[in-house]
């Protein structure tokens, strides 16, 4: 990105002054190096989002922002229904509520190493992954609707996990306001055999070790210790979310002129929050959030059972579950007044700080865990929400490394088998049905996740707690 088009507000904050049809400024968070490396399209997409009606305060980009669909991936924007605000299917994206959860295992890395190969094989057998895979559950229509209304709570009621898990999930495991009756037959058909599946692409299930504690007090509150073995699960709302995104993208794009919306990019497909279409989308999107929460909950139970077969001493407890692609109604203070805002986070993590009323008691004093996925060859991070982030980004932070190279380029540069062998030589086991998929996901195709996390920390969006490194990774 051309830095001359930006005003530098601080070491890690860059402004796009309002111009043209922009209603608010654009604000990008990142170090000079990260912002310079961002695609020019990120600039244009931040500007485009700033033109949408009812946007409040600013159009934000997180340090891992990259070229997305309408919104940049790593984009955050809030809209006020009382000021003509919109909800955007493009702003949430296709993989609604894609997210990450982190489980402690009660085990040390030394417990894992002797059985790592068996454990990787067992996890790979236990959790369906990749193109064409199906789950062990088939949902008929009533069960589908119950799942879409109940989220992770539905899964727990059916024996996937425990009630204690629910308090460690955003929305306590169940997104209210879901309207299963709005979700199309196509979306339900696409999902009926996909519960408890990982998907493909950048989704993964990873056994990791806590490699470094950065914030000892916070790590203690999260029960993380150096050398602990943990498990990360990264996936979303599967086919149901993809289909809802597809259908509402079209409906909103075609309906926009009728609502008087002159969209600078068709992909910014939006509708007024209070319109029937806006309300329908919110009901369907919330159902997709529940689908993602249920899916990660089922996978969690499959992982627990797999661990029990290999390491009976393991006790997998959910630390937290965060979603990346959502629009949520939140109360935020704006100019001294509480306002009810529809906060879009596209490839961004909610990062509420200490004392926020939406947090479970366990995190009230420290802030919520912010889980940042890395690549299968580098690292992931646990961060914690800060008090300042509410004022800086509606309580949001980065979500991952972000690609530095297209899949197309990655495929030209790496051979999947070679990537697997190189990682094995470093002690990282990969299990994937597709070597081509592994090549496209090669660690070198991603930005430096540590630089992204450091920038989020320096910008006050979240604070680094611990670094996690992979031991074994199951890819789709």
């Amino acid at each position: 990105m051309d830095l001359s088009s930006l005003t530098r507000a601080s070491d890690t904050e860059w402004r796009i002054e309002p111009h043209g049809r922009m209603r608010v400024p654009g604000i990008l968070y990142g170090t000079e190096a990260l912002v310079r490396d961002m695609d020019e399209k990120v600039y244009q997409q931040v500007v485009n989002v700033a033109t949408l009606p009812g946007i409040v305060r600013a159009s934000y980009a997180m340090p891992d922002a990259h070229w997305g669909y309408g919104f940049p991936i790593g984009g955050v924007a809030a809209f006020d229904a009382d000021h003509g605000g919109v909800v955007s299917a493009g702003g949430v994206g296709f993989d609604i509520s894609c997210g990450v959860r982190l489980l402690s295992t009660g085990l040390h890395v030394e417990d894992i190493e002797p059985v790592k190969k068996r454990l990787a094989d067992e996890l790979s057998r236990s959790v369906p992954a990749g193109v064409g895979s199906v789950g062990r559950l088939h949902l008929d229509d009533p069960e589908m609707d119950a799942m879409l209304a109940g989220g992770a709570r539905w899964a727990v009621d059916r024996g996937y996990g425990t009630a204690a898990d629910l308090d460690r999930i955003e929305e306590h495991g169940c997104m209210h306001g879901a309207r299963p009756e709005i979700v199309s037959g196509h979306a339900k058909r696409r999902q009926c055999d996909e519960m408890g599946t990982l998907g493909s692409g950048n989704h993964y299930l990873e056994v990791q070790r806590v490699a470094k504690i950065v914030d000892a007090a916070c790590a203690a509150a999260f029960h993380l210790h150096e050398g602990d073995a943990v498990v990360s699960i990264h996936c979303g709302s599967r086919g149901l979310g993809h289909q809802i995104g597809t259908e509402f993208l079209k409906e909103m794009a075609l309906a926009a002129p009728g609502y008087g919306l002159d969209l600078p990019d068709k992909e910014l497909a939006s509708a007024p929050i209070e319109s029937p279409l806006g309300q329908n989308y919110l009901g369907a999107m919330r159902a997709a959030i529940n689908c993602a929460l249920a899916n990660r909950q089922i996978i969690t139970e499959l992982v627990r059972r797999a661990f029990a077969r290999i390491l009976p001493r393991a006790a997998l407890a959910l630390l937290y579950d965060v979603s990346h692609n959502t629009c949520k109604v939140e109360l935020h203070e704006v100019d001294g007044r509480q306002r009810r805002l529809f906060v879009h986070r596209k490839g961004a993590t909610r990062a509420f700080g200490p004392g926020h009323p939406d947090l479970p008691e366990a995190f009230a004093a420290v802030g919520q865990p912010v889980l940042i996925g890395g690549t299968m060859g580098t690292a992931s991070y646990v961060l914690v929400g800060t008090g300042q982030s509410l004022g800086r980004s509606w309580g949001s932070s980065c979500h991952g490394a972000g690609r530095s190279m297209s899949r197309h380029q990655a495929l030209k540069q790496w051979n999947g088998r070679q990537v697997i062998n190189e990682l094995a030589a470093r002690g990282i086991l990969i299990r994937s049905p597709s070597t081509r998929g592994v090549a496209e996901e090669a660690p070198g195709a991603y930005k430096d996740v540590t630089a992204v996390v450091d920038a989020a920390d320096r910008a006050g969006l979240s604070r680094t707690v611990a670094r996690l490194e992979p031991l074994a990774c199951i890819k789709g």
Partner: protein
Amino acid sequence: MAAPVVARNTWEHFAHGADIGVRGVGPTKADAFVQAALALTGVITSPAAVRPITAIQIACDAPSDDVLLADWLNALIYEMATRRMLFGAFIVSIDGSHLTATAWGEPVDPVRHEPAVEIKGATYTALAVAPLDDDHWLAQCVVDV
């Protein structure tokens, strides 16, 4: 005298930051849609590796050519996802805003196809259906994977 134009049917992928673009070129709009569909399959596996065992019918309507392309690709994505199939051969007919098509394929075979990634949806990013200078048509968009 200008050299005669040689009809070409080609597909390719183009780079997108996080995902991948599919592009088809053909002597007619319908041919370009066929090539874009081959590019779609090419995101997952080599279209040549997909055996044309089963045929399915697809129909869609849209108010513009570009939305029709997105609808066509999204219909294929839906069929791939729900039938757990891949498609490697297509016939497309376009009459105004209406598309009808036959797609031939087979169930996904993880060993033989070694599918790289599933496709979430065809997006409106870099979406274009347009005539080219040489009596050919272009059909393209980015797909989210």
